[in-house]
């Protein structure tokens, strides 16, 4: 039983990472209706920024804050320069643009920071507790803690501030919001900026916790699991992203433990979950079902 709970904790830790990135995906989808396939590579670039500053003797927490600030600006620039010119284009064009950004950002990261595997320093000491033989690591606690903090900040920003109200209004109906004098473009930029900032935090905490080194491939598998989390929870639901992330993480972990034939193919789990959701509940567990009057 201790092994079950240990794998459960492993899954929750991984799930918190997927949820963090899924939150960023949801944020962009809610504000602009775009599935951002470049989200993982945006986080990758930000994580390399953390490594860059940390390797230049900046304290890790400070490096994370600087990277988050740069990512905030970078995210809004991406919206303004890359996305806005094609925002009215068909969904297929937008998919191609974000996939193009995925490839471009990955290459830019390698050109700028090199393709060596780099050790990203931890922002907190590594420690493991073994109460009743259940393995609980500091990584899991920090990952879950950061996720909770992100949720609270997003909730406060979106539900309790005038700025958040404006963002939600634009997400809900850009035309009416524009008539009311809300700067739609600025709000859309804010959505991308926040998503990039969340990605930076997710990468900077997740890589030292789950991977032995930072490489240009660090975020690729994470993105697949994050997409599964967002699809499971519903692409327009922040709560859904969190619940979806945890479900995917736990499913991955328990599959490794109890279904031996899938232990080296856990990538099957998110695909199976996506397929299941699309068949049974296309809008996800917490997503809003679209109703159209005909």
């Amino acid at each position, binding site marked *: 039983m201790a092994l079950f709970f240990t794998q459960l904790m492993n899954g929750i830790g991984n799930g918190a990472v997927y949820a963090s990135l899924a939150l960023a995906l949801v944020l962009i989808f809610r504000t602009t209706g775009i599935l951002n396939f470049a989200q993982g590579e945006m986080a990758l670039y930000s994580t390399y920024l953390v490594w860059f500053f940390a390797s230049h003797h900046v304290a890790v927490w400070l490096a994370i804050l600087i990277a988050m600030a740069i990512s905030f600006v970078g995210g809004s620039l991406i919206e303004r320069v890359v996305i806005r010119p094609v925002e009215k284009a068909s969904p297929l064009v937008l998919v191609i643009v974000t996939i193009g950004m995925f490839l471009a950002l990955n290459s830019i990261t390698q050109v700028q920071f090199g*393709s060596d*595997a780099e050790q990203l320093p931890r922002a907190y000491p*590594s420690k493991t507790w073994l109460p009743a033989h259940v*393995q609980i690591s500091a990584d899991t606690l920090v990952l879950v803690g950061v996720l909770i903090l992100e949720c609270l900040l997003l909730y406060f920003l979106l539900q309790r501030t005038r700025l958040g109200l404006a963002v939600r209004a634009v997400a809900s109906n850009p035309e009416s919001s524009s008539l009311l004098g809300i700067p739609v473009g600025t709000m859309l930029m804010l959505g991308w900026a926040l998503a990039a900032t969340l990605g930076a935090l997710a990468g900077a905490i997740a890589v030292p916790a789950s991977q032995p080194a930072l*490489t240009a*491939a660090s975020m690729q*598998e994470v993105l697949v699991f994050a997409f599964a989390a967002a699809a499971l929870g519903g692409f327009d639901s922040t709560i859904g992203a969190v619940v979806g992330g945890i479900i995917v993480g736990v499913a991955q972990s328990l599959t490794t433990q109890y279904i031996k034939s899938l232990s*080296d193919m856990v990538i099957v789990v998110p695909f199976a979950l996506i397929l299941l959701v699309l068949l049974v509940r296309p809008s996800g567990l917490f997503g809003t079902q679209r109703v159209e009057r005909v």
Partner: protein
Amino acid sequence: MKVASPARRFGPLRIVTVLVIATMVAAACGSSRKTGGSSTSGPSGTGGSSSVIDTSSCPAGNDSVGVNGDTITIGTSLPLSGTYAAFKAILQGEEAYFSYLNSTGGVDVGGKKYKINLVSKDDAYDASKTVTNVQSLINDSKVFSLFNVVGTKNNLGIRNMVNTQCVPDLLIASGAIQWGNTKYPWMLGSELVPYPLEMRAFVNYLKEKKPNATIALLKANDDFGQSYQESLQSLIKGTNLKIVQTQSYDSEGADVNSQVTSLAATHADAFVVGATLLACPAALNAMGSAGWHPITYMSGTCVSKLLFAAGGANSNNVFSVTPLLDPADPANNSNAAMQLYKTNMKKYQSSADATDGIVAYGWTTGALFAAILHASPSATRSAVMETARTLKPLSDVGLQLPGSTWSTSANDWFLGEDFRLIQYNVSQGHTNFIGPLIDDSGKAGPLSPTSLLNG
């Protein structure tokens, strides 16, 4: 009739004479191959019926491709990006070696000096990209031979291509034993210790120190991991050692946390990490987090300062094997070969970390390639391949362990059968030898499971 009669009279004698001479020539060739003597014994050691390499079905004009004037162009494909990008360090060592070699005028092959031009391509460890890269290297870059292409499945993917086109695939960066498969004579492994010999050294250690040990095995879900699993299974037969659990992980990634958690729950006495690159320190970290402290063995492909460092305190006392001197050990700094290596790394690849074992492997493999070329009677594909397959014992190549030799023969196609068991010390930051030099010459083939060898 008068003219014909002497011929008839001496006919049987002539036939006997020809047979005797033919037998003597065949015997001479046979003994030459046995001692690995064809490498520098002149053209008689290459081509023809006495050769290990059969060139009868090779494309016309194949032999001299890639040799232009005084330059020999060779090609490699390896991961320079993606999860396995740390293998880029191999290329840094190789390029430094060839720059150094070219600065001395090149390598002497059959009395003529040649410079080496190495063309490298990135395959991100993706076997399908390796196939595309190698096609381009052979058809567009017109390389003389492939050199140190990285990865087991990657080289298996190009196996038919190189063998039907008679392109040497030399010094393959994989210790899998498939490179000893006689159906594919145009391939040869590098100085990496064949995986069954790695397992043999570790199993022997366990038999002596903990004869009733239980073993947990982590393996990559590819031919690389399969080599470790099958070798381990066959080596522990008839002993009191027992594998209590095997877990495999997706070799495309390095996430092994859940697998190691599951292995840790067995509380096995020994842990064999049949993984490579980032999955190695990931496995060690997961092992440490689980509070599990078994006798741990890590693949020889993981012997790197970077990877040991990524494992942190969990890397302490981890076993592995090496055919090379550790460039991170200050005790080796007085060694002349080490000084040559470090001086030239600084000169030609200053951004590389010369104390990393992966860089040292690249440097040594470059030196080994030059040594094979030098031993060849001529700069032709068939002569070089024949030489590589029947190589006289080589010593003091690159950072080769003092006292060890690398050789091949018609019956033994494995180079890296001399090596030492090592253990990493975190506080010292380098590995230390455990026990004497292991001379397993000729043992890799017989020890290997037939299904793997001929698979």
